[in-house]
């Protein structure tokens, strides 16, 4: 019974009728504000407190009493609680006002409060609720920071204001975009708030069960806390990938730097690294374009990585990668340093504003074709190059098995490159020039792979390093990516 009721809180929004009857039987005073209860939902603690007070009593076999309420919030009498609620419900009609109410436990403990308590975080198997609560609070705090919480709240507020405007649907495309974005961000916001609420409920529950000497209830609540703690770890990670385009698939482009065969070989090693990384993550990898070197390696290559959050992760790889080793292509076996430039381009799906390509701006030609062609030639080579004349941006593809597919594939690359250009332009306009969009040259050295005289891979942005260079080159780069992503998001304390 208890565990079911505990879980009820998380399915609160889906089952309002159930809660309704439960609460209605509890106190009729509250029924008048019922609808507000549920529409203003999860973040309003007063909505939950009576729920718990009822539960507390039920396990004792009593019900229909508000006395436990006053027990939970000492010093506040029943009528006080109700009047406070009423005031709150009346004013909580707009989303923005609700946001001001800082969720907390019944005795006023907030996330910040828990962190400030400095409770020691023990291992997961230690059944100390303070340790769990502290770990969860820290997770919530980190998640909020990663989501740029203040900006998020502000954005939601301004989007809500947009949505309330009368003339919104005069431009259905824009309206659709705004309402989608609002839905997306509100979802993120509510998820975190729901976690906060859940944390406080569990804490209240534990306190209550101690007062009531109910060991079973306490251990259930503790178990729920532990589960939540594990859950929050995943949420932390997910919050790393909350950028607008993070969920997109992407192209990864690798270009060999100066230095001939050695650097072309390095470029092909980099491509291999990403191919293996992508395969490990279960992404689908396709080579779109590959220009082999004369002796070995590649001059450049473009691979397409398809799957959820491919761009979110891979964007951390944008920049120059440096290799130091004794070159197998040097007859004297001397030490060489070579570079590969990596660019990561999101493949924007429907719903994003995309660069409009005019058919007349394109020049499409058969790439590397010679001779009389037609029936004279039997070749499986049908490479296509598309040039966007106004920008001079080109895209080629030769790895598909028909000219038609090569053209389609090259077109997709071209579209994404132009989209990225457009994004960079808009970002500049918005004065939010993010790093990954601009510095894509050999000057922006992000990581060194040293194979001689010692073995080490080091990220210059985070100083994260490992000595097992081989496994990194085998695609084990997640730790580099995650450390970069968290470093770049977590440094920004002001976001909260």
């Amino acid at each position, binding site marked *: 019974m208890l565990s079911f009721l505990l879980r009820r809180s998380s399915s609160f929004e889906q089952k309002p009728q159930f809660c309704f009857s439960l609460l209605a039987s509890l106190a009729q005073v509250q029924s008048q504000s019922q609808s507000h209860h549920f529409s203003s939902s999860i973040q309003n603690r007063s909505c939950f407190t009576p729920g718990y007070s009822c539960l507390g009593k039920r396990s004792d076999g009593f019900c229909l009493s508000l006395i436990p309420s006053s027990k939970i919030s000492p010093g506040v009498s029943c009528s006080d609680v109700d009047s406070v609620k009423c005031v709150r419900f009346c004013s909580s009609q707009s989303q923005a006002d609700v946001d001001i109410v800082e969720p907390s436990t019944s005795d006023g403990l907030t996330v910040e409060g828990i962190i400030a308590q400095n409770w020691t975080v023990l291992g997961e198997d230690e059944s100390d609720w303070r340790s769990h609560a502290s770990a969860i609070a820290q997770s919530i705090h980190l998640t909020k920071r990663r989501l740029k919480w203040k900006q998020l709240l502000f954005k939601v507020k301004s989007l809500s204001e947009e949505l309330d405007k009368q003339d919104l649907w005069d431009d259905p495309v824009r309206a659709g975009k705004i309402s989608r974005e609002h839905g997306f961000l509100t979802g993120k916001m509510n998820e975190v708030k729901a976690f906060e609420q859940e944390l406080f409920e569990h804490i209240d529950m534990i306190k209550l069960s101690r007062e009531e000497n109910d060991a079973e209830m306490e251990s259930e609540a503790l178990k729920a806390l532990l589960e939540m703690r594990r859950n929050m770890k995943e949420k932390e990670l997910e919050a790393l990938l909350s950028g607008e385009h993070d969920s997109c698939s992407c192209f990864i482009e690798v270009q060999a730097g100066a230095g001939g065969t050695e650097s072309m070989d390095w470029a092909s090693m980099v491509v291999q690294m990403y191919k293996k990384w992508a395969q490990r993550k279960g992404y689908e990898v396709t080579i779109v374009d590959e220009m082999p070197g004369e002796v070995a390696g590649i001059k450049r290559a473009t691979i397409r990585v398809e799957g959820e959050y491919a761009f979110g992760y891979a964007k951390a790889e944008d920049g120059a990668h440096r290799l130091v080793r004794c070159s197998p292509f040097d007859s004297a076996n001397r030490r060489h340093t070579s570079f590969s430039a990596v660019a990561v381009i999101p493949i924007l799906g429907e719903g994003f504003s995309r660069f409009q390509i005019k058919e007349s701006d394109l020049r499409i030609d058969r790439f590397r074709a010679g001779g009389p062609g037609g029936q004279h030639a039997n070749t*499986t080579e049908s490479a296509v190059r598309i040039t966007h004349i106004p920008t001079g941006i080109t895209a080629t593809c030769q790895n598909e098995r028909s000219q038609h597919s090569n053209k389609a594939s090259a077109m997709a690359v071209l579209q994404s490159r132009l989209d990225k250009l457009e994004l960079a332009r808009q970002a500049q306009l918005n004065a939010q020039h993010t790093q990954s969009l601009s510095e894509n040259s050999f000057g922006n050295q992000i990581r060194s792979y040293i194979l001689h005289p010692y073995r080490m891979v080091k990220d210059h942005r985070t100083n994260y390093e490992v000595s097992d260079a081989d496994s990194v080159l085998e695609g084990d780069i997640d730790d580099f990516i995650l450390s970069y992503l968290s470093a770049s998001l977590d440094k920004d304390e002001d976001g909260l």
Partner: protein
Amino acid sequence: MATSVGSKFLDLDNGPDSTLLHRELNWLIQDSLGEGEPATLSCAASASSSGSTSSKKVVKLRTCLDDLYRLWKERIEDRRPFQYLVGCEHWRDLVLSVEEGVLIPRPETELIVDFVEDVLAENYGDGLKEGLWADLGTGSGALAIAIGRILGCNGRVIATDLSPVAVAVTEYNVKRYCLQDKVKVKQGSWFEPLEESEVELGGIVSNPPYIPSDNIAGLQAEVSKHEPILALDGGANGMKDLLHLCNGAASMLRPGGFFAFETNGEQQSQFLAGYMESELGGRLVDIKIESDLAGIPRFVKGFKAR
């Protein structure tokens, strides 16, 4: 083996170089993988060509390795076309079955379908989309199938070919794309198999043999040694069949009907366009020469006068 070729074939007769052969080898392995295997074998080509197969993963092959090796040997030593090796050619968005005796459809020819697409979009009112089309000398059925797929629900295509092998292959390909109701395959020379009821054609497309007879011997080995001469040899100047098709188009197309033919290049295209303008009494109009993506004037297209 592929690497050893280097650019030998390329210098000899404009044949494939080792880069291309590596890619083909990769595709060969891809095609031989059983269902459910990953679509890409990372660096299969480079691993097998350098003889160091370091892949520890066991993959299911649909053919045994010896067969694969034998096939690949034919590719290099006999210059057997890759498409005959794997029995298919990827053409536009289609995968067409091909075998010895049928011309492997060329990438250039894909553009004819683009022309037809444009015409269907522009001349919607003329009902070409629901009309009867003919692909003459269809070979593997490439044009017929591609056009069959873009016509409206009442549109039909007749594909003819003199070669019984081509007819059989086309029938198979048509079945694979479930177009039996839409594409009719008939054996015979050019317009001959068309019945009297089928003379009001909405469109004619063709990639007829157009290589001058004395050029045949100098062709790339893949073509001259393996592909059907019937589909290549266009007589002394290569224009024999093209001219026949022009005359046929002038009489068989319905007013406003569309035609597009592939040619050997600039010379043939210009000759053909000139012939249509001067010798056919204005029955074919709006005649245009279109280049392929390599920039060679490859196609002649136009309409029957109204």
